[in-house]
């Protein structure tokens, strides 16, 4: 797992099929469910992962997130970093 995958703007990230992203009322948050685990997501993480469907490009996702979180000037870098990290964890595929 030492090799980091760097997402390019034209890549289309998609959630790995082992993972299920869902709104969970009892946690008042989006959760990521997978064999043997549950991860509670913060709003930004959830908004990114919701868009990892294999259709939107990383650039599309960045544009939409910038519109959602206008107060965060550096969000584009954070998004690519997040994609890289979650790819490393096996949550998403390129």
């Amino acid at each position, binding site marked *: *797992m030492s*090799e980091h995958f760097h997402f390019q703007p034209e890549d289309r990230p998609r959630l790995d*099929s*082992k993972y*299920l992203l*869902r709104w*969970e009322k*009892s*946690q008042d948050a989006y*959760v990521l*469910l*997978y*064999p*043997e*685990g*549950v*991860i*509670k997501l913060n709003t930004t993480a959830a908004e990114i992962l919701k868009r990892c469907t294999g259709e939107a490009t990383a650039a599309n996702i960045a544009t939409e997130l910038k519109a959602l979180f206008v107060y965060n000037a550096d969000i584009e870098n954070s998004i690519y970093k997040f994609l890289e990290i979650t790819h490393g964890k*096996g949550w998403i595929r390129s």
Partner: protein
Amino acid sequence: MAKDGSAVSLDGQGKPMWLVLELTYRCPLKCVWCNNPLDFDQYGKKELSTEEWKRVLREGRELGALQLGFSGGEPMLRDDIEELVAEAERLGYYTNLITSGVGLTPERLKALKQAGLKQIQLSLQSANRDLTDELVGARAHDLKVHVARMIKAEGFPMVLNVPIFRQNIDQVDEILALAEDIGVDYLELANIQYYNWALLNRDELLPTREQIERAEAAVNAARQRSGQKMTIYFVIPDYYETRPKACMNGWGTIHLTIAPDGAALPCQEVRVIEGLEFPTVREHSLDWLWNDSPLFKKFRGDEWMKEPCRTCDEKEKDFGGCRCQAFLLTGDATNTDPACAKSPHHHVIEMAISKTRQKHHEPRPLVRRQIGAVTTMFMAQK
């Protein structure tokens, strides 16, 4: 159970996030490390009905349960499992089937896929036919490997669950190769825990420290090799740790097990502790059982702790270990788990380990899980 590499990054906030349904204790196998009660045959007539299990599912979701395990015994012996999976999916659980593979025909596998089942945990005991068949007391090895391939062909994520003990621990390389060949997503090499049948057979099953070190080295090499393709968990026996496992992540914090007769349990082994009462979903709501029953309140938090746990700066980390193990090995469930080196009873663990080092070990027969293998009349008195 603490797992190397696992990530439960969600605090339950008082909710039973993990719900395990032990649909039945019936099983075609006779595994010598089975964690079902010694008097498992007393539960057949008391099994919950389909409608009763559905009510448990509904009430569980209302309490905030997310992960759901269908377990046993062998859950495929229930002919309503497809119906229960469909109901669980409708309610929004992440559904896991925990099976020996026996009874998982291609037709039923397809039906489970259609019902929405998310994931399958299949047990396998070795990479060798004769050894597996001997250990489970049935011709099961070839069937299990066949079922594993069927599960992958059907597109399910799969955990291959390999219980580890002295008899198979030196085969870790072969098991890793077989798992890679099958294409499993998660390989769990879990040293067994010593309760019930496993405790009866402990002197024959507990590996040596050297065996564990060799196995760990093989696992680390495989992790380098397989990269992201296969996640490998390796759980060492708590006997060889100097601190106890954070059992169930604390009593009554995130885990809720429902036994075949509907008893709501903080863990699957808890009936070994004498003097507790085990009310069922037949008489009570799940809400009451989880939040208010004396059983779940018994060891919640740290009020019950004695020394050395009470003033230990690690009590938030391991919650004093396992209550069942404390009871089984010291006679008092409020004692520190003797797996902890700080426990005044730690010598019972050291004695078990020293037996693994005896040069002239006289092998003793293993007790298979089957009706009549041991006398359980004394248990009915409780």
